[in-house]
């Protein structure tokens, strides 16, 4: 396996960053895998996040059956060095307890709730011990029918991180506070999808807020793990119908990092082209939806009318408007012919001109300004601690962009394609609007460059897939329209046993399947900080603040639950569930 990690970085890692490391293993691109002892992870998190200014991309766990669990932390060091650090520690199967990193940084809190819920690993001293995807009330006490512990109505038992003292989960007592507690959702015209935002209002003033997601949980991780590499990409694409291209790209780059893929340049250009077209349509869509959220039907209509032009290009290239279906390991399945590229490129100036006229007019509208200036504030410190990604972070003057931070994936190479990173220091709704508006033009620039390449050249579009070494690991990062998208994969073949296979369906045991795939979507992070932005705003601003993160709940709620909640919800307790789930993996 080739590696491109600089030896000086390895040295720096071994001496300064993780002297506790037991094992160092450079992976493809700029990833380094380090194994440490479980006791050290909290200490290391403190050092990475507080001292070195790294970002916790995601925290997740992998079930290794008899060998216990692996807990995986992925840190992004891009502000210091060209490095993504994968930190792994083993967890004992019989006594699965890990120290909480959520106490150090809020970035880990949702991830830890997820780990607790799905793998049955207990997190010691986590700030917010409620359910993430299951209903808060689950499981109910069979005798009284009242919610048992871990429900919304139980006050948080442990203290909150000192740096983000405001972030307390709402401890609402149903007897006293119901009158002013307004659950927005699951069905609410402001948000298409199902979620519940609990806001406690004093008149029209929001004094407390909490968000509950999980209605959308579809078990995507499990589905991909069962389907294998080639079929999994179609599921990955359908995690989200708006940023499907970003999911496709992240999936294939992640899977290609498992082996030594040499993807043809033309294929990479096509991939980049589609991701950027996807971003253009997604941002235009957002501006339209935001206009609709503040009650401006005209804004919605005219932006969506323009969006159709982008959709036409996408449809001509891929054959579908939503799920492009061209992603394959080692390339793409469809070529963009030279005539098509030329034709598409001719429409770009017209599109650009229409957008230059329209978008400033929409953004500068005085009533729009009145609705966005100062609404939903999020300072840089809050954004950093909460782990905001994408336009939300960039609107808080935080210059992160996975396209730049992650070394050339797809065609995001400054030598081949030029683009700028848009940042804004308004730290509010206005900033988020402006960032998205400007990014639309940046993306159109990239689209133009890709088309210029495609209309001049021809070439291969797909490399023959190769064998994947069992047990290898990879991280795929990609800038989705809503922010950094994270994929973690571990190839099957070592630990994977028969339970992964539906009986009689697959002849090859393990070798063609993934042991684990973990997805962390941008909305997952941005949703976690919505309560922060909501507190103090007016009720009328709640939909637009929620909309300002461009939240995509289909993305947020993708992960896997071990046990089926509906069938046994009256007989199981939490402890029993944990025991059961672990038993099931063990047997």
């Amino acid at each position, binding site marked *: 396996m080739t590696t491109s990690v600089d030896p000086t970085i390895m040295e720096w890692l071994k001496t300064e960053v993780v002297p506790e490391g037991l094992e160092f293993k450079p992976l493809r691109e700029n990833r380094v895998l380090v194994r440490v002892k479980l006791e050290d992870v909290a200490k290391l998190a403190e050092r990475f996040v507080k001292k070195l200014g790294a970002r916790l991309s995601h925290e997740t766990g992998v079930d290794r059956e008899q060998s216990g669990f692996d807990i995986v932390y992925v840190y992004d060091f891009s502000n210091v060095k060209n490095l993504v650090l994968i930190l792994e520690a083993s967890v004992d199967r019989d006594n699965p307890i890990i120290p909480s990193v959520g106490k150090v940084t809020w970035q880990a809190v949702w991830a830890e709730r997820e780990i607790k819920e799905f793998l049955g690993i207990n997190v010691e001293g986590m700030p917010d011990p409620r359910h993430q995807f299951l209903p808060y009330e689950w499981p109910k006490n069979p005798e009284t029918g009242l919610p048992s512990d871990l429900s919304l109505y139980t006050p948080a038992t442990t203290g909150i991180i000192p740096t983000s003292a405001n972030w307390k989960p709402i401890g609402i007592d149903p007897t006293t506070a119901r009158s002013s507690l*307004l659950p927005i959702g699951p069905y*609410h*015209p*402001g948000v298409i999808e199902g979620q519940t935002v609990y806001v406690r209002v004093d008149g*029209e003033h929001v004094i407390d807020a909490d968000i509950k997601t999980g209605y959308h949980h579809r078990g995507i991780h499990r589905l991909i793990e069962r389907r294998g590499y080639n079929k999994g990409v179609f599921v990955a694409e359908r995690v989200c119908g708006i940023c499907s291209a970003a999911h496709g790209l992240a999936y294939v780059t992640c899977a290609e990092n498992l082996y030594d893929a040499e993807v043809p340049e033309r294929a990479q250009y096509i991939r980049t082209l589609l991701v950027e077209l996807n971003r253009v349509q997604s941002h235009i869509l957002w501006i339209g939806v935001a*206009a*609709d*959220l*503040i*009650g*401006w*039907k*005209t*804004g919605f*209509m*005219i932006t969506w*009318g323009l969006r159709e032009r982008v959709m036409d290009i996408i449809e001509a290239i891929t054959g579908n408007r939503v799920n492009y279906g061209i992603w394959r390991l080692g390339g793409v399945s469809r070529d963009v012919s030279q005539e098509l590229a030329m034709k598409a490129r001719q429409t770009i100036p017209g599109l650009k001109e229409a957008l230059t006229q329209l978008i400033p007019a929409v953004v500068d*509208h005085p*009533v*729009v300004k*009145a*609705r966005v200036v100062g609404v939903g504030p999020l300072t840089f410190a809050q954004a950093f601690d909460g782990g905001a990604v994408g336009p939300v972070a960039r609107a808080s003057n935080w210059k992160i962009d996975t396209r730049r931070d992650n070394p050339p994936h797809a065609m995001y190479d400054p030598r081949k394609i030029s683009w700028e990173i848009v940042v804004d220091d308004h730290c509010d709704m206005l900033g988020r609007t402006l960032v998205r508006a400007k990014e639309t033009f940046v993306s159109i620039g990239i689209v133009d460059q890709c088309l210029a390449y495609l209309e001049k050249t021809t070439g291969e579009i797909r490399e023959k897939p190769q064998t994947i070494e069992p047990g290898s690991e990879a991280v795929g990062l990609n800038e989705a329209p809503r922010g950094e998208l994270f994929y973690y994969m571990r190839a099957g073949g070592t630990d994977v046993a028969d339970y992964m296979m539906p009986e009689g369906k697959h002849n090859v045991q393990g070798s063609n399947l993934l042991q684990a795939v973990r997805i962390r979507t941008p909305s997952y992070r941005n949703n976690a900080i919505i309560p922060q932005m909501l507190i103090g705003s*007016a*009720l*009328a*601003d*709640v*939909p637009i603040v929620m909309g300002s993160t461009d939240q995509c709940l289909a993305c947020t709620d993708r992960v896997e639950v071990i046990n089926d909640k509906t069938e046994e919800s009256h007989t199981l307790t939490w402890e029993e569930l944990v025991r059961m789930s672990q038993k099931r993996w063990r047997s």
Partner: protein
Amino acid sequence: MVDVLFTAVTMLIMVPVALFAGILYVFLFRKLSARFQWRVGPIVRMYKDLAPLLGTSRILQPLYDILKLFGKDTPVPDISRKTIFVASPYLAFLCAFLAIFFIPFPGVPLLSTMEDSLVIASYLLIGAVMFTILGAASSGSPWGAIGARRDVEIFLIYEVGFVVALFSVGLVARSLSLWEIATRPGLPMLILNPFAAVLLFLVILGKLAIKPLDMAEAEAEIVAGPFTEYGGKHLALFQLMKAFLFYDMIALFITLFLGSALSSILWLPAYIIAVIVLLFFITVIQVLHPRFQIAKGMSWYGRWVLVFGLLTAIMVLVLRFYWVV
């Protein structure tokens, strides 16, 4: 006796006329907004191949909406206060409906010859909104309650403006009979007291929930506001009320400010032009504005209603005492 008979007959004729006028106003409003939004809107001439199935024209689209709603089930939520919940749509509709008899049509005085028809009309128009709020508040839905609260806030502002605008005209014309105001000789009130016209226009925006001021029915924020729990017959009544309110407010505006246009049926073309101009302005404002956030909207609206109210009052004083009209 002949007068009474004549009035009765005209009143009977007026019902379908006002209904169709209201429906047409709503249609025009929808059609114009659609055209401003780069689309077609309710289609005037149906495509030939679809005409057998979908009808030849959709000029009466709002009427079809209302008729369809009458043919649907009418849900009444269990948690609502049923009597008020059921009664308020009827009362609101009745208020807006009765108001048509007190506002003159070109050449047709109806009941507006009554001495206090201005007062009665203003009462009825206030009542229509009040019963809407009452129904929303009794629906038991949190969204209905919030919609009702917002409606009350904005209602308090525009009703003040409404009364000021109405009585300023009455004071200058020295009469509270709308027919007398309408047939008053001399310059129309639009030129004499333009501030009152602007004030009434602002009131119309609030009362008809036109875009920057439709916080009470804010879709994305509070579902459908006051109408969230209403369906079927009740919603149809509210829709009818809205159509009549459209007719009432526009007719009232023309009566008060373009006075002499109503003295004879021959003025009908001028009346129609005035209606179209008014609808055009209303539509342009609707399509060009997002909704205000409630607090900011209130302060904006309150400020301008206050400013124009004061200007109107000053103008009335000037007209009454220094410039004998």
